[in-house]
């Protein structure tokens, strides 16, 4: 992160209208699949249910952060300011679930 003035934030490219709409469509479709999955008892009972849901929501999460919050296009400082805490928060949640016998 030496002299970071070079990439000041007006130089970055923005996501476009078209991307915005595609993203919205993706979010919609994944949400529909999630809810749909909830109503398939055999799937809910299967081992794949929880990981599948977690993966789907992680994808939604990432998509919103990357495109709507334009982290993909923004200064790397922002990625660190967000990614670091997110990592620690995630690790802490997992640790708690382990400590309280939920994993």
């Amino acid at each position, binding site marked *: 992160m030496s002299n970071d003035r070079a990439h000041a934030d007006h130089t970055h490219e923005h996501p476009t209208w078209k991307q915005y709409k595609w*993203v*919205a469509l993706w979010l919609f479709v994944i*949400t529909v699949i999630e*809810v749909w999955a909830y109503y398939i008892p055999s799937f809910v009972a299967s081992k794949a249910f929880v990981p599948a849901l977690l993966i789907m929501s992680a994808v939604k999460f990432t998509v919103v*952060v990357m495109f709507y919050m334009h982290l993909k296009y923004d200064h790397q400082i922002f990625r660190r300011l967000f990614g670091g805490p997110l990592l620690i928060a995630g690790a802490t949640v997992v640790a708690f679930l382990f400590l309280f016998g*939920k994993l």
Partner: protein
Amino acid sequence: MSTAATAGAHEAHEHTHYTTTGLHHRKIAMWAFIGSECMLFGSLITTYLVYKGRSVAGPFPHEAWTSPDGKAFPAILDIPVTSASTFVLLMSSLFMVLALAAVENKGKPGYEGRLGSSKFWLAATAAAGATFLGFQAFEFTSFVHHGLTIKTNLFGSSFFTLTGFHGAHVAVGVLWLMTMLFIDIKRGLGPKDALNVDIMALYWHFVDVVWIAIFTLVYLIK
């Protein structure tokens, strides 16, 4: 804590001052704030998950329950309704980016008319946020009618606290949006305001992202 984030407004006219990165102070502060919020919601969600299935008495989120004195309580969570409100909140994020694009590109070709109007999209975002809050109010009251309050059991305590905190964040966001809309109506927002709208948008999307996690972890996973 949102005061900390908003207090930055008008704090410095950065453009007249030297900055190391060329970035705006407030945007840096907002991302730091969002990082911090990850830990807050992480703690709230964790608490909900840790207490899941630990309530000594019903009602419960996903199973029906009959109290010792014979009263029957249905499973509390109403997935169809929440799916609808989740959808509304997701779409509000789309409106938000469109509002930001409209502000940034004010007057540029392709941004004429309603679909290029920041007022329209700001209003739409605020309305979607308000609708979400409406759903939540409906949800909360119906839970109370079904015998679940914040005092009923661990599920009630942790559920209402988690979703209530999220709702409070949405409410702050709606107020923020309405203030911005008010300014837009009064004097019109243009590219020079893009930063302010951008920061608000970051907040708004973050609140949406938190809901994505809550919806899956609290509502869908049994």
